[in-house]
């Protein structure tokens, strides 16, 4: 799960190994409980409908956290994230649950990214990456950038 890469072997244009995510209503409940974001827009059908988005949507900050994981899974202990920024372009919906533990059929969200820049400043080694989340239709709903420093 946690890979080990080295700055020397990475090239500009390299793809970050994609991370698939299946968001479920259960996952949203967990996220609400873990962060204290109890906005009903993420769990109540009627409330979400009244706000013109049809049904409950995935928390933006959860999508941001997926893109952080995309990076940390890839760099392992070789480096750390120094800067990270995230913008939300479109809303995303979770799947319903089929059983206590299994999601229903539906959309998978793919977290993807590319290396945009590689440079050194003295003995500090950096990468800059661009990341995004792609929904089931292939649209980019969330965009992010990260600066990673290698030890």
């Amino acid at each position, binding site marked *: *799960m*946690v890979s080990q890469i080295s700055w020397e072997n990475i090239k500009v244009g390299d793809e970050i190994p994609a991370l698939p*995510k299946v968001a479920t209503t259960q*996952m949203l409940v*967990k*996220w609400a*409980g*873990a*962060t*204290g*974001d*109890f*906005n009903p827009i993420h769990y109540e059908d009627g409330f979400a409908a009244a706000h013109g988005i049809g049904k409950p949507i995935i928390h*933006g*900050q*959860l999508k*941001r*956290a*997926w893109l*952080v*994981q995309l990076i*940390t*899974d890839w760099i392992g*202990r070789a480096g*750390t*994230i*120094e*800067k*990270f*920024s*995230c*913008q*939300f372009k479109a809303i995303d919906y979770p799947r319903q649950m089929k059983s206590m533990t299994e999601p229903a059929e539906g959309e998978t969200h793919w977290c993807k990214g590319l290396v945009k820049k590689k440079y050194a400043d003295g003995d500090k080694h950096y990468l800059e990456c661009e990341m995004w989340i792609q929904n089931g239709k292939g649209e980019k709903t969330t965009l992010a950038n990260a600066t990673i420093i290698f030890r």
Partner: protein
Amino acid sequence: MLEEQVMKLVGKTGDGIVMEVEKGAIKRYADAIGDYNPLYWDEEYARESGFDAIVAPPGFFGWPVSWDGPMPILVPLMAEMMDTIIKAGYGSILDGGIDYEFLRPVRAGDVLTAISRIASITEREGKSGKILFSIVETTYVNQDNELVAKTRQTVINR
């Protein structure tokens, strides 16, 4: 022209919010993401990696020791800002994104103090009326008085 009540918010700093970073809270947060990186779960692995306890995923700063109202995530300064902006006639709220600067790891057992400041509020003319962009900057300092992170959040109201 922005309402005086809204303009008065700019530069305002909130009280320090004390945040505890508990082991269980780190694991619940990581589990909600579906992130089973051993740095967040395995004490021994974290020690081998040079930390004295499990660490928090970047972006997790623990829970406030106490809170008012139904949304622990919404600090009083942010709540006041939203309330004032909505009263000034901007109905809908959009998350305009967030920038982080991570300076030091956050470890289980840390006690952080978060201080937020409303850095700017600007109005722009959008396709369907006026849009308000508010920027809130927050710094997180640990129990050893070290700066661990800075964030810059954008809230969009129309």
